[in-house]
């Protein structure tokens, strides 16, 4: 069964002469349990695809199927139970006046869970934070710890699909390694499907099996990670991206 199936997706902002087409005729398919990466420079529309899936982009057309079913507008509670998102900046995506306990228990009670207390300890454990973090506020956590809380919040409704929007770009490289390892472990443990956005090809290459390259709102090429490593690409833009990221990594 397919996890995410997108065809002919268009997303635009504004009307008439002010209309900006952020995503044009995008097509991608992620099998259940797969991991798919979207790369491209800022403004290429990669995050917009994630936002369209989540129902955060108001104007779109085309087909978005999640777990074999087309999405409803507005998205149902069942949808948010199956699909969750981790945002880019953990400094901005956590409520500064809510403790970790409040963040997680609110999500859990919204989704109708009863055994909230045991679930919170389990979630904190899953993301590698001890029980001592439970009553802390975001300002008492480091960047990496915040991103762990954001991941725990996303895992709370026991989703099958996680959308990751640049989950490590605001973090130091040493912390990035921890978070990437955590994401690898969680995917194996919970059989999750990932759709990840990043501008860092090495990060996407580490997490994802298939990669789509975007430029100016269009997916210009979709390729497997092995092809990407071997530089077997057809599109000149993909080649340019790969070269500039290998250039900084090789020496």
């Amino acid at each position, binding site marked *: 069964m397919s996890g995410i199936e997108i065809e002919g997706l268009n997303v635009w902002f504004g009307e008439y002469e002010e209309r900006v087409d952020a995503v044009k005729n995008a097509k991608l398919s992620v099998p259940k349990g797969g991991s798919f990466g979207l790369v491209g*420079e*800022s403004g290429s529309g990669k995050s917009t695809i994630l936002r369209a899936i989540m129902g955060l982009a108001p104007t779109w057309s085309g087909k978005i199927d999640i777990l074999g079913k087309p999405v409803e507008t507005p998205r149902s509670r069942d949808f948010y139970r199956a699909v969750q998102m981790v945002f880019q900046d953990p400094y901005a995506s956590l409520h500064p006046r809510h403790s970790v306990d409040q963040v997680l228990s609110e999500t859990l009670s919204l989704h109708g869970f009863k055994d909230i207390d045991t679930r919170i300890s389990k979630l904190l454990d899953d993301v590698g934070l001890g029980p001592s973090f439970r009553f802390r506020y975001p300002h008492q956590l480091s*960047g990496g710890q915040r991103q762990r809380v954001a991941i725990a919040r996303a895992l709370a409704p026991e989703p099958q699909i996680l959308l990751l929007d640049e989950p490590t770009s605001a973090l*130091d*490289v*040493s912390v*990035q*390694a*921890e978070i*990437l*390892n955590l994401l*690898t472990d969680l995917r194996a443990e919970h059989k999750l499907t990932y759709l990840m956005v990043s*501008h*860092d*090809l*090495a*990060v996407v*290459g*580490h997490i994802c099996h298939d990669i789509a390259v975007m430029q100016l709102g269009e997916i210009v090429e979709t390729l497997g*990670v092995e092809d*990407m*490593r071997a530089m077997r690409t057809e599109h000149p833009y993909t080649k*340019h*991206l*790969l070269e*500039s*990221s*290998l*250039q*900084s*990594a*090789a*020496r």
Partner: protein
Amino acid sequence: MSKLLEVENLWVKFPTRNGVFDAVRGVSFSLGQERLGIVGESGSGKSMTGRAILRLIRPPGMIEADKMELEGVDLLGRSEREMRKVRGQQISMIMQDPKFSLNPVMRVGAQISEAYRLHAKVSKKEAKRKAIAMLEAVAIRDPERVYRMFPHEVSGGMGQRIMIAMMLIPDPKIMIADEPTSALDVSVQMQVLEIMDKLVKDRGMGLIFISHDLNLVSSFCDRVLIMYAGRVVETLPADKLHEAQHPYTRGLLNSLPRLDAPKERLDVLQRDPAWATEESVSG
């Protein structure tokens, strides 16, 4: 090689409610006409070192050093007024994000010529001519048009090139670049770096390049200082970075995912408390 800048035993201290916090602890280095990279994680004191050289640490923060000299002339004892002559004219600094460094309500060209006219006594017309030439030097096509634009009308990469133009126009001896490309896309990054590299080389300036990106620094600089917890733990020629000895440097290098060498799990940096207390290495 003549020394442009010499720093000995530099400390940056911030008094807090729980005692004095040392952001930079005994850093020594010297800079000639070369490209010196300073690498470290957030909170390692790399940016503070850069700001301390220009004495841009706000009170109650304090700067202490045994020696901080620009071409043999002391920087520490100067008055604020004298420092203002140093900033921009002799040592200039490029910050991380052009969005926050450019004045949003002033045309780009006016900002560049203002920077020039502050340091050189020239007519407005001459300043404009010079500013346009400078915009051309940072590979901006159609500099006449960009000269009249407002900062919100230019892209991030172009904004950073405008910043470089503005910083280079008074012809400083040293340029400090604090994460000049981390707000930019990978494809634009290289272009901006190449422009900076060329200009620095042509003018025989000294460059201090502050970044968290090890690979970028090693491909771009001549020498690298690696900072951890306010100290320099290791100093290396940039092309020998991959032969680094210190476990912290090794840990940082190994924690990077690599396109050409895939692995199942990434190595996680194991921190040794001894790293924070070791003597600082001078570079």
